[in-house]
Structures are given as C-alpha cells and as structure tokens.
C-alpha cells in the first residue's frame, strides 16, 4: 500500500481524489454505492447567494468521448446549503470543498463570508461557469475581473481559497497569476470547454441554452497541457481535472503538476469511478515502487 495522502494549503487529504463540483451533488446519492470517507474530498455543487433554478432542459448532450451540460448553477442558495447540506457533509470524514459562484464579486464575497463561519474545510471559487449569463466565465476570462473577484472573496474568508479557472482563454497562466496575486491559496482547473451540438433534424441546438460546457475524456489532453503550464507559472498548488477516467489519468495529471485531482463526468459512466481511480493509483505506485504519491507531483521531464 503506497501512501496516497496529500496536503493542500495545510489541509490533509487521505488521497488526492475529489469528485468534481456539479457531478456529485452533496454526496447523498453516491453514498448509496460507497462510504464517502473513502474519498480524498468532495467538491460540492456550486452555491450562490440566493436559490437559482438553473437553465431549462435539455441540459445534457452526449458528444464523442464527452458530454455537454448547461445546468446553469441550479442550487438551493447558500443559506439552505449551510443549514441542510453542510452539517451532514461535515460528518463524512472527508475534506469538503464548498464550490461557490455568484453574479457579482459582492455576491461571491457574501457567500464566502457565510461559509467562513462554518466548519467547511476549503472554498473553491468558480470563476469559470460557462452556463450563466452573469459572473461565471465572464469573471474567468479576464485577468482584471478574475483578480477583482478573487480579491473580494479573499477579504471575506480566512479559509483556504481555491480559484477554479476556465480553459476558454488565450492564456490560462495569466489568469492563474492574477488570482495568485490577489491571494488565492490554490487554483483548480480545468472547468468545461464551451461547446455546442445541433440536432440536424430539428435544426435546433440540442441544449436549450444553445451552448454548454464540454467535459469528459476528450478534453483530457487540454487539461494535461493547462495543468502543466499553470503549475510552472504559479507557486500555489494546482488541483487538476478534466476528463480523468482512470488511475493512470490521475497519475498523469499529477506528474503534469497537480497536487490533487478532481473527477467529473467519469462518475456518470461509472459511479464507482473515484473509488476505482484511488485503487488504480495505488496499484501503479506499488508496481513502480513509489512509496508516496507526493513523490510524483510535477515530475514530468519536458524534452
């Protein structure tokens, strides 16, 4: 048994695998399959200041080696989250990353402030949701806005602050540096690529929102590249994600520079994916006589 534990921003994770925000709800549905304590952590569904109803359906489209979603941050609002979901989550013996979003820097800060008063372990600020009109990717695609919203949230909380970056940018390292400068303790990436599908029989976009976020195996090479670039550009830790389906994928992202790995769409294909990934990582490390997963972080040797 290799040592799978990692430490991010002073928080201990028993292993580096974290179901990604939006695919795992608040964990309740997946608890039917396995104990949440087996997970390194859980990133909760993005939460906003007020309840949001999200976008009309269809919200899901299949694509080659991936999917599009346009859920649009449906969530019950921060007060409901803190009252009805967080207390339960905090008993699960795993690191809880509260994913937050908002239409304005003020809303994000307000949500962060409310979470600051709870026991939640970390905040993950989503400045990259492609499925909302205000905030979301609008924050994540300009260094100035990204810095501004990070600064606002930074003031509102002393908890470790992860900023989740959008891949839909010319230079993800510029954005990463901007949020690092404003006090982010870590960055996580990548959120979904903006995509679209059309039903050629009805000549309508498959998604009612016209466009949506592309995730899944197809985007994995983009994730590896962006994690590698970002890990080489900032000093704060990087949490990698985007198309991870196997333990080998997770190892690859960690070699590219990720200190932990989130798993998104893969849980739809196989609800046990995070658990299998943890065990596959362990197998790889054992087979290669690597005693701790921490030894592989950022070890890719560029040519």
């Amino acid at each position: 048994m290799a040592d799978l534990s990692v430490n991010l921003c002073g928080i201990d994770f028993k292993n580096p695998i974290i179901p990604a925000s939006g695919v795992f709800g608040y964990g309740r549905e997946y608890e039917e399959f396995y104990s949440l304590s087996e997970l390194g952590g859980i990133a909760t569904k993005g939460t906003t200041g007020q309840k949001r109803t999200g976008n009309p359906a269809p919200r899901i489209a299949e694509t080659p080696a991936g999917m599009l979603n346009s859920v649009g941050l449906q969530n019950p609002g921060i007060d409901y989250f803190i009252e009805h979901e967080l207390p339960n989550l905090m008993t699960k013996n795993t690191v809880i990353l509260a994913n937050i979003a908002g239409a304005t820097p003020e809303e994000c800060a307000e949500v962060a402030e409310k979470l600051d008063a709870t026991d939640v372990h970390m905040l993950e600020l989503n400045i990259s949701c492609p499925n909302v009109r205000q905030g979301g990717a609008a924050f994540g695609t300009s260094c100035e806005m990204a810095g501004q919203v990070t600064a606002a949230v930074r003031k509102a909380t002393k908890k470790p602050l992860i900023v989740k970056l959008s891949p839909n940018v010319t230079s993800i390292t510029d954005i990463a540096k901007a949020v690092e400068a404003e006090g982010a303790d870590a960055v996580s990436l990548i959120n979904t690529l903006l995509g679209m599908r059309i039903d050629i029989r009805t000549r309508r976009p498959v998604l009612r929102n016209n466009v949506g976020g592309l995730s899944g195996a197809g985007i994995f090479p983009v994730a590896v590249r962006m994690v590698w670039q970002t890990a080489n550009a900032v000093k704060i830790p990087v949490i990698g994600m985007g198309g991870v389906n196997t333990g080998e994928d997770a190892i690859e992202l960690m070699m590219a520079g990720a200190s932990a790995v989130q798993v998104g769409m893969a849980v739809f294909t196989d609800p046990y994916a995070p658990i299998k990934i943890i065990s596959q990582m362990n197998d790889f490390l054992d087979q290669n006589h690597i005693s701790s997963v921490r030894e592989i972080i950022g070890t890719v040797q560029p040519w």
Partner: protein
Amino acid sequence: MKYLQGEYPIIHKQALAKDVYSLTMLCPEIAAIACPGQFVHILPKGFGLRRPISIAGINREQGTLRIVFVIKHKGTQAIADLNQGDYLDMIAPLGHGFTLMPEAQHVILVGGGIGVPPMLPLAAYYGGKATAISGFRTFQQVILQEDLEACGASTICCTEDGSAGAVKGFVTAPLEQLLSEGADAVFACGSLPMLKAVSEVCIRNRTYCEVSLEERMACGIGACLGCACKIKKQNQEEFLHVCKNGPVFKAEEVLW
C-alpha cells in the same frame, strides 16, 4: 431510495417488432425492490453516458427484470446488439414510480408506442381492474397486447391509420369514453403531445392522472441536476428532476 450498479446477465432476448427488443436480466437484488414506473440506467459498451429505459417487467420469484426498447440511435443499437449470455451494466432500480392504489376498482393505463412497456408492471399489479389503452402509428409497431392481456387487463389497441386494433385514431377517444364511465386513476407513458392530451382529458374529467416523463440524463440518480423538468407545486414553479423526483409526476403538476 435504494439502487445498485452491476453487470447482470441477459437470460432472454426477443425481437418484438422492427427495431424493438425485449431483454430479461437476472438481477435478484434489483428485482426484489423494483416498482412499476421505475427505470434502469444502462451503460452501452464504449459510451460515456448511460441510457434510461423503463422497467417493463418485474419477476420477484425468478429474480428477473425485463426491459423493452426501440433502437433510436447508436446507444440503443449497442444494447440491441447484446445477446443472451452477455452482461448488461445497469444502475437500478431508479426513480419514483407510479402510485399503487390497492383500493382502486378501475384504473386506465395509457401507453403510446414505446410508452406501452412501462404499463406492463402496472397491469401485473392491477390485473383485471386495469384497462390498457395502447396507441401506435401503424400495425407493424403494435407490441405487448398479449402480455397485457396475460396480466388480466382488458386491452384497447389503437392505430393512427386503423391498420390494427379496435380503434382507428388516437388513444384519447377511447380514454374519454372510459372516463365518462368513471375510473379511479389514469397512468400514462408516451410522447409529450400524447401525455399532454391525456392529461387534459383527465383534468377535464376530474380523474387523477400520473404521467411518466423523459429527459436527457447524466447521473440518473439526482446528483447532477441534468434532467430538469418544470413542475408546479402549491403554485410554485420549480425545476425538479426526472430521474429522482420522477419519471412519474402528477399530470396536474407538470408545466408542459
């Protein structure tokens, strides 16, 4: 709600009509807890997203579950390519099924096309107290009438072109007539226009009605919020989720 994921052996495969197949899986743990109106979430090999398919038969004694589906595109094609002896990767049983009313005297089951299969477990439950109205475009698509009758249900088969069944036209005509004679409840599954029409007829006739809806799904268990449908409860509109709150909803609550 309890559900499991696993690979279950297909013990029977049958072609029912052009592009329509019936599969029966041995899965005692699932059969033991499955209810009419629930569905299974199937992973066709090589795909990233699962396919939701209604449960068309539950046999607790034999520990089997039956599904009936039509080949729509690549995913259902891949499922149809499986044979007896192959394994089917399912999460099941999922969703909130039809209300079972032990005291009901007469219930009407309305199925349109590939919406007929989920009526079978209801027919098995209600037996002679059920009348099953099934609608199809044409005679080649007619399926499962003997199965419904074997459960004890009376059947009324409608085809749009009159090429089979007692009724030429839509399911709503015989439904109106039966409702005028009184019924405790109507349970329906089919295309959106059909469900909407059935729902209107029931509301007009003040008969309780439940409909089974479809929406594109990712997780299938209520976590991803992908399968939204607009529902009105206590005059509040909200997005509920077909996979967890449904697929069966009260007709009066659905915002079409």
